[in-house]
Structures are given as C-alpha cells and as structure tokens.
C-alpha cells in the first residue's frame, strides 16, 4: 500500500527571482506600516484583508498568475504560482482580500462561467481590485453540506434566490459570491444543487457581521430575500452543483495556507530564544522545522500532481489534515516550552495570544478534521 504517491518536484527555474520580487514587495509594505504593524497579524495572514496590498500585488502581476492573458492573467506555471503563495504566507503578507478570488473563484468561472461573467469579473480579480466569497455553509448545513436549503426558483428567463448562508469569509468586502443552492424543488441531499454567481450589490442581498472570539470581523451571515438574477447567473450545469463544488474543495485543500498559518510564531520564537536556548527548546524548534520541511514537500508534491492534470484528492486531503494539525498544535507546544506573560506586549506574546485563540478554526475551515479523516478512511478502502 502506498497512499501518497511521492515524486520529485520540478521547482521552476524562476523560483529565486520570484521570491526576491515578493520579498521586496512585502518588505516595502511592512516598512511603510512601521510601528503600526501588529506582529500578530503576520500569523494566519491569509485571513487578513488589505485591499491596498492586494492592488500592489495585482500591479506586480502576482495575482491570477495562471489565468489566460485575455482575462488579465499572466499564463505562468502552477508551480511558479505556488512559489509566490508560499512566500507571501511565510512572510505574513495580508493576502486575505483577494485570496479566494485567486485560489478558486476565477478558476471556477474559467471552467463553468459564461463569457460575460468571465469578462466582468476576472480582469478586476487579476488587478487585485475585485474580491469574492464562497457561499457554502448554512445554519443547518455545516459539515453536513448536502443539507443546503437556500433555493433558486426559475422566474421568467432568470432565477430568484431565497435563503441564508453563514460563516461566509470576506462577504463584507466581496464583490461577488459563488453560492451552492438548491435549484430543483423537492430535491434532497446532494442532488438538485447548482452553483450561482451572485453580485453582492444585487437588491435583496444583506450581509451581517459575525465577530469572532478574538474580536475580529472575518466572517458573516448573508441573507437572500427575493434576489433576482439573470439566466447567466447559473454557473456550469444545472443540478451538478455538488459535483462542481466538491471538486473545487479538493483543489483548495493542499495549498501552503494549510500548514503555514503559524509560521510567524515559529519565527518570533527563534528570535526570542536565540542560539543559546536550552536543549528542550532547541529540540522543539528542530522538531517544528522538520515537520514544516516535510509538509512543504507534501504540499508541493500535490501541487505538482495537480499541474500534471492528475486528481490527487486523497493526497490533498492528507496534506490539509496533517498541515492543520501541525499549525494548530504549534501554539500549544510553544506555550508549554516557554514562560510567557499572557498580558505581555512583546511580539512573541502577541503572536502566541492571537494564535492560541484563532487556531481552533484551523481544523474547522475548509472541512473539519473529522470530515477529512472520514474522506481519508474512505480512500484507504474502509467503510
């Protein structure tokens, strides 16, 4: 049995040059912030939206790197894009505004969207000016996604959407949502669902904030009250929404954001303890470095397989489960190894405090640990 097809990773020749470009850009960004920069915000940085930074990245041709040029993309290779993403995350750049558009929405529109929708949304996404959100979870449909109850009713040539989404990251600044809704009346479970492209400024769409335990506003409730959409809002095939949405989920499971969210904490720990740390701390740093190196190897292997056109859905689920467990365990391990003042204002205490509080979400977002392990078990031939 070999569940994870390990293979060489063809890192692009342009990697070093791309890294220098990203490093310079991120250094400029933080230099401009100066003392206003909160060190905690370098952790989990793909949750932190900064439209100004997104526009700078767009201007530097670092968003939409693999999209066709006719839609404002840059036709670079998937591994070149991977290099840029891991750089941005490791450096703690605030990439939250455009993250979802870059990771999945434009790709989804390129595959299933109408030509009109592509022209309308993708060039602005590549410029870092247009942002998107994903409408999946509902009050009665969390891990049990097939319980979606938001409906799309045909009306004239178009559609009317009614219902509610919840835990929608970035809905407060998104221009467009890709929503999974029930388009076939009387259908059940994962049959009868379709994906719709919903401009967030459509009359009847209301966004209400949900504040997390840290006090931040990352996610939202989104209500649809008699939201009228043209026929072209349907993306892909009517009734195939489940298949389309889950295929998209499996593509987003293995990226570097699944294991790098706590990197800022490791860096602050290294800075704080210095080369003369006691043996226990040295060993912990060594262990975390080894795990991170291995996860990078695994994540980039899946990226390589995806670039080859393979479907490594089991491997990508394993990367997410292992990566989330790593980035989630790190705050607790470092807290146990060092004496830290929870009221302290130094960078280490602030990053640790932030990550202790938000890291529970790491094994919830994008599929809970339990769901992922169920998928892996099925891939092993259990059930």
């Amino acid at each position: 049995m070999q569940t994870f097809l390990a293979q060489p990773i063809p890192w692009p020749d342009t990697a070093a040059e791309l890294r220098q470009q990203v490093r310079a850009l991120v250094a400029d960004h933080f230099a401009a912030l100066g003392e206003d920069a909160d060190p905690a915000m370098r952790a989990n940085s793909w949750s932190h939206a900064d439209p100004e930074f997104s526009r700078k990245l767009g201007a530097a041709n670092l968003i939409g790197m693999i999209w066709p040029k006719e839609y404002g993309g840059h036709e670079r290779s998937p591994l070149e894009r991977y290099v840029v993403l891991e750089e941005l995350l490791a450096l703690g750049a605030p990439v939250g505004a455009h993250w979802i558009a870059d990771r999945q929405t434009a790709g989804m529109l390129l595959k299933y969207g109408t030509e009109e929708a592509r022209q309308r949304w993708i060039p602005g996404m590549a410029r870092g000016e247009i942002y998107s959100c994903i409408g999946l979870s509902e009050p009665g449909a969390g891990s049990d996604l097939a319980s979606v109850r938001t409906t799309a009713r045909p009306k004239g040539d178009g559609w009317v959407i009614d219902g509610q989404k919840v835990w929608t990251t970035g809905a407060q600044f998104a221009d467009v949502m890709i929503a999974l809704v029930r388009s076939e009346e009387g259908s059940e479970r994962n049959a009868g669902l379709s994906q719709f492209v919903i401009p967030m400024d459509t009359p009847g769409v209301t966004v209400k904030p949900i504040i997390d335990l840290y006090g931040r506003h990352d996610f939202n409730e989104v209500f649809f009250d008699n939201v009228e959409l043209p026929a072209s809002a349907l993306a892909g095939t009517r009734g195939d929404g489940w298949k389309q949405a889950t295929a998209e989920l499996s593509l987003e499971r293995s990226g570097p954001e699944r294991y790098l969210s706590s990197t800022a904490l490791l860096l602050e720990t290294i800075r704080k303890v210095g080369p003369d740390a006691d043996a226990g701390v040295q060993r912990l740093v060594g262990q975390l470095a080894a795990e991170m190196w291995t996860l990078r190897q695994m994540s980039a292997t899946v990226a390589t397989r995806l670039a080859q056109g393979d479907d490594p859905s089991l491997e990508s689920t394993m990367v997410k489960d292992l990566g989330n467990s790593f980035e989630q365990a790190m705050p607790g391990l470092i807290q146990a190894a060092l004496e830290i003042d929870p009221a302290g204002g130094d960078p280490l205490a602030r990053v640790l405090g932030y990550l202790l509080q938000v890291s529970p979400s790491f094994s919830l977002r994008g599929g809970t640990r339990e769901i992922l392990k169920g998928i892996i078990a099925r891939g092993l031939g259990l059930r």
Partner: protein
Amino acid sequence: MSEEQTMLAEMADGLFGELASAPDDAGAWQKLEEVGLADLLVAEDAGGFGGGWDDARVVFRLAGYHGLAEPLVEAALARHIGSRHEYKGYGALAGGAAGTLEEDSFTGDLHSISGPEGASYAVTPYEGGTLIIDLAAADISKGTAISGETRGSARVEGARALQTGDDVLALAAFARAAQIAGALDAALSRSVEYVNERKQFGRPLAKFQAVQQNLATFACEAAAANCAAIGAAQALDRGNASFEIAAAKLRANMAAGTGASIAHQVHGAIGFTEEYPLHKLTRRLWTWRSEMGGDAHWSQLLGARVLARGADNFWPDMTALTD
C-alpha cells in the same frame, strides 16, 4: 519513477517478498548477491550497479516494507563507502565507535554492528566523521536489537582504521528513514485488511468511526515519512543533504512511534502474538527509530542549526534547499 527505477523496484519487490515468505531459506543472502543489490551504491566503473540515492530509497523502502531479514541495507551502505577506499568484499555497518585513533590504528569498542557473515570491515560513525575499521582480528559478540535482529559488538586492539570524509551517520539515518517509510506502509496495509475482515458488534471494525479516524491519522504519518524520505533522497542526489536528512529521520521517527501504536491498537490482542506477523514490522520500527540518531539527536542538531541562523534566515534557508 524512471523506467530503470521501476524495473529495480519490481525486481526488489518480488525478491524481498519471496524471501519474506521463506524465512529459513539458507540461500537468501546468495540470492540478493546474485542480483547485485548489495552493490547498488557501488559505482559502475568499480563493478557496481551505480545507483543514485533515490534508487537506494526505493530499495531500502521495500526492504522495510517486507521486513527483509538479511542485512542488505547495511551491506550496501558499507560497500558504498568501502568501495571508494579500496576495500574489497563484504562490509558491515556499525552504530558507533568509542576509543582512540592513532594514525591508522584504532583501539576501542564498536556497537550495533550489522552486516553479512564474513564482513571484513565495519564502517562506523566516529566523532562526527566516519571510520572504516578492519574486523579481521575482531572478536564480535552477538546481541539482538528490539526487532530480534542480530547486532554485534566488538572490542578491537590496534585494528587498521581509515578516516574518510563521508558522513556515514547521515547516510545510514537516511536509509533507516526509508525503511521506516516502507514498514509503515506495510503495517498500514495490514491494518486496513484486518479491520475490513474482523467483525465485532455484528459489523467489520472498519465501520467504526473511531477506528477509521485512527487509521486516517496513521495514513497521514506514513505519507509524511515517505515524502520525507524522497525529499532527503533528492537532496542527496543534488549534493549536500545535511538539513534534509536530519529532518527526514526525525519526521520518520515520529511517524514510526504513532504508526506502530495505531497498528497495534486496531489489531487488538492478535497483533500482540508471536504467531501474527505484525511484530515483524513494529519491532523493526521501534528499533530503527533509535538507530542512527533518535529524535533527540536530530531535533537538537536541527534546532541548534536553525537558532544559530536566526529568524530572518529561517524561510530563505528553507527555500534555498530547493531553488
């Protein structure tokens, strides 16, 4: 995998599987010699197979997968180093040596010696480097490791010794990481088969979520060990692999502990018997975790290295490994 590597893998897989099913085959070592596997890492112009480190990973992983009883991995590593310093015949690998080296003469103790019968020299880590020590006059006493495999120890007085520029501890740690990766995959496979067959409460164990979740965790650990081993092999083929080998052995060690625990847990009492072959894998995993540097050794080495470089170099150093 290249075509050549696929052929090598198929040959090793078939032969190791055959040897595992006939544990008392007195001609086992001869069969391995006939196909040239002990010369896997000997250069072609020295009459060897001229394999690279990723070829070695494939073969070592399969040795771990099948719980190969013969000391092929050790012999291949010893010959790799010995052959480049004019040593002929069989060599053994030792876990370490303590004693004094005066010019080309060593007096002291060797431990955890593993190699084919009649090995005339041992390659051993010594004070951060590598020594090749003649075993001709050595009195080797045989002991056993946790796995039940033979590990010798020897006292030598004034034995001929050669200090080389190799890092045998790292190379052997890489080999153990690859073996761990293979043994984990085999134990996972056996565990999956077992829980699909064994019924309790009227249904197969595989139907229970608690069992499923444990095996999913196991699968991730096995995957991590395999990816770590291939990462180290590629680094070795490129050149300097000191960071990668340390990380790979450490990560494989961690996976070995978790994997062996879960394999036994899902097997229940039967996995704990001498009769059932799970222990051929798990006892080796426990052995290999400690051999050629345990978790503490490699984590401290890595941690000290990372801390000496400082926070600002951490990520650039990580990416420089592959760029």
